């Protein structure tokens, strides 16, 4: 127990009784996020209501040498906010103000706890939206998005969180307030690029200035049905090769289709081996012609059917089916492990074959979901969490797939982050010098190491050779 009553009292004085979570039952809730395999209960959760409160809290913790971890809505899937060996958690859920909306310059300044989708809602009536759309966008916070550099289906054309952040307000681990703004061209080093995606290891993000985009004039969403994943992934490359840049290209295999069909009843064909959702947007003119080329590319790879969502309602249901696919897996299996690997797009057919081979060798069902346009694959390994021998195979299968991603010239994380889940894989992905350079960079912001220790980079305390996968996931 690192926290004595005196410091608790001082912290309470800062955040007030509503910002203090300290009951046993309430703390239990904070022992994990969307990654549930590893658990650790914090001693105290603080929910400050303003940047100033965050600043004062961090000063206090710094003075007392107490480690802390930031938390958004706890929808992460790599255990980035797991409080293992960390007594205090600092949550952003009471910092939910949209500070300003500047439509003339298409930007908004929002506090870290603002939910992703809320930004789009706030500006929808003026025809604007916030583009990054992780699947958990109805719950996840902007602070968390910045920490994880979140993506989403539409990153293919629109990019990830980093491409939509113009400025950040953060509190460094010693309590110093820092504002980083990028007004136009990048001058000097790209600090936004360093902080975005740092998984809460450099400080606590308290607000972000984000870019707003005008909604595209026209949108067409196509659904192509393929006999199998291999054909669908070839079609992805053909579409890009045809010179098109769809807003999104998402693939679901037969098992994922089965789960989402049970949940939402969209009406996917029973015999579909894989479906590809291709969304094109932009000017009205030329959209139909682009659709024709997508249809041709899909049919060229053996698509049995390509249809265009008839109206907004059908389009919305299609996207709902896709975006909630992770959660819907609960209908097929008591537990599953989400992997998040990346390969160069042209090598999708190869990773698909490897996944099939791994699945067979370990006798495990693996459902696959892909942000296919980005080469980002999410194999969902289904298993029974009560069967320990199966769990061992899940671990091996997951590592083999991610290892193959690296061999194919890809990466071990597309958007879910490293957190605690993939720490062991970091030394596979980077050599010792690169890891040391990253550790040195972290020390510039976080010299005391109090802010979210034991995450992202392998360290003495967190070196676990055999990583066990999370049974569940989202994203």
């Amino acid at each position, binding site marked *: 127990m690192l926290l004595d009553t005196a410091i608790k009292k001082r912290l309470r004085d800062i955040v007030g009784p509503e910002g203090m979570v300290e009951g046993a039952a309430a703390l239990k809730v904070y022992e994990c996020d969307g990654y549930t395999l590893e658990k650790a209960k914090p001693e105290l959760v603080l929910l400050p209501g303003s940047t100033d409160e965050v600043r004062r809290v961090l000063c206090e913790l710094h003075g007392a040498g107490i480690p802390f971890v930031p938390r958004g809505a706890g929808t992460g899937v790599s255990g980035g906010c797991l409080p293992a060996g960390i007594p205090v958690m600092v949550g952003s859920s009471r910092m939910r103000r949209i500070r300003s909306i500047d439509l003339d310059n298409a930007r908004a300044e929002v506090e870290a706890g603002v939910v992703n989708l809320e930004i789009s809602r706030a500006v929808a009536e003026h025809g604007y939206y916030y583009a990054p759309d992780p699947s958990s966008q109805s719950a996840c916070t902007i602070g968390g998005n910045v920490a994880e550099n979140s993506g989403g289906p539409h990153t293919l054309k629109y990019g990830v969180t980093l491409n939509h952040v113009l400025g950040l307000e953060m509190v460094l681990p010693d309590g110093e307030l820092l504002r980083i703004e990028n007004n136009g061209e990048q001058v000097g080093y790209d600090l936004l690029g360093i902080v975005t995606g740092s998984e809460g290891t450099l400080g606590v993000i308290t607000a972000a200035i984000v870019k707003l985009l005008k909604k595209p004039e026209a949108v067409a969403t196509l659904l192509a049905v393929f006999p199998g994943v291999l054909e669908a992934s070839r079609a992805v490359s053909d579409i890009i090769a045809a010179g098109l840049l769809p807003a999104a290209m998402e693939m679901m295999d037969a098992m994922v289709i089965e789960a989402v069909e049970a949940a939402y009843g969209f009406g996917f064909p029973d015999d579909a081996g894989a479906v590809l959702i291709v969304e094109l947007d932009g000017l009205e003119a030329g959209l139909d012609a682009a659709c024709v080329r997508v249809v041709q590319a899909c049919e060229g790879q053996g698509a049995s059917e390509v249809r265009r969502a008839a109206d907004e309602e059908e389009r919305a249901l299609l996207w709902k089916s896709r975006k909630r696919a*992770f*959660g819907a897996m609960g209908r097929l299996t008591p537990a599953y492990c989400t992997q998040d690997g990346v390969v160069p797009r042209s090598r999708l057919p190869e990773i698909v074959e490897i996944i099939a081979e791994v699945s067979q060798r370990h006798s495990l069902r693996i459902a696959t979901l892909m942000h296919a346009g980005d080469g980002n694959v999410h194999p969902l390994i289904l298993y029974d969490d009560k069967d320990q021998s199966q769990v061992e195979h899940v671990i091996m299968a997951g590592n083999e797939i991610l290892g193959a991603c690296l061999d194919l010239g890809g990466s071990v994380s597309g958007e879910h982050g490293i957190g605690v889940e993939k720490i062991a894989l970091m030394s596979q992905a980077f050599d010792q010098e690169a890891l040391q350079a990253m550790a040195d960079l972290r020390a510039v912001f976080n010299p005391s190491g109090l802010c979210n220790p034991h995450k992202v980079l392998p360290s003495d305390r967190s070196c676990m050779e055999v990583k066990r996968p999370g049974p569940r996931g989202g994203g």
Partner: protein
Amino acid sequence: MEFGDGLELGLPCVHCGLCLDTCPTYKISGSEAASPRGRIYIMEAIGAGELAFDDEAAGHLETCLGCRACESACPSGVDYSRRIDEFRPRLAASKRRSELWRKFSRRLHGNTRIFDVGLKAARVVDSLGLRRLRRRIPFFSLLPGRTASSNGVELSPLQRSNVHQPPYPRARVALLRGCIADRAMPGLNRDAVEVLQRNGIEIVELHDQVCCGALDLHEGRRSEALALARANVDIFSGALQRGEVDFVVSTAAGCGAQLREYGKLLGGDSDYREAAALLSERHRDICELLVELGFEKPRAPGATAGGKAGALAYHDACHLLHGCKVEAAPRAICEAATGTAPLDLGENSICCGSAGTYNLQQRTMAGRLGARKAELARISGAGVIAVANVGCMLQLSRALDLAGLRIEVRHPIELLAQAYRGSPGAKAGPEAKR
């Protein structure tokens, strides 16, 4: 279903967190212990013996409104309300409820005079100009008083409706009157009867109907709730099976959502399982039924709708939106009644804080949720808010009063009835005759 465990409690929670921001109490407090995922986690931990069922744990569960917004958001199909309902008897048995509350809450439904006395007193207090003061007194504050729409003669539906049954009915329905609706807003059921009859729907009065049992279930009195459910199944399903009625219709979303749960609630009772499922399947919210069967559009929409100038905003009642999944129909009724599509109040899927007896028990949270709605109402610029549930109507009226806003709260059916009456050449409905 490929796996067995947890079947009785439905599908597993995969801890994705998509429910969080749909939860009103999480939105207000920011604490995940006051979120659906958190509450499920707490209930599971208590069940597994990892956590004590103490005052703190009970407190997190008690702040749940039971609005079921999380169920609409859940991709895994977790039956949240069933899980928390399983827990309610334990909550009720804990010493956190006073004996006075237990006695009082038992008498809230059924043929109690509590409302009649309260209503009269409320009107007297209001006529003395003390309404704002009354709005601060527990329970008393929720009664409609002089601002209510129940400003007509109070007669039970049947006494009026007998005379005007359509000669060639398109459908025959039984009306679930609802204990609180019938007492606090008798005008509503009267309007419902009028609107249904005008649309060629015959009302078959089923006299022995009892309270739906929703309040008992929320209070953790499970056996009482089941007894009430069985009594209603006897009456309503009997009439459905005999072909005397085609549908069972409710005006209060809370009662309606409860009828739809009967199938599940009595699923383990072999004598009642099928009849209960039939009732659940044949229940319709009144707006839903009218849209399903088609309804007459008032010829002069908006002529008297709402009574005052000012735009109309529609707010979803949780038990209609999340409980019955009825979203479009009441909006269509509002649009027909006023001639324009209703405004969006914003945060439509977020509870107003009414939630059965919640606003009598968890007054602070209910007050904050009500104030949040009042603020949204002020921003919307609406002069009238339509909402299809009595509890929400009472809660919103109080919240608006406390915020000093002169915004009327009406049921969509009241608006439609009023528009019919204002339509030139309207058929001789009950109201027109008077």
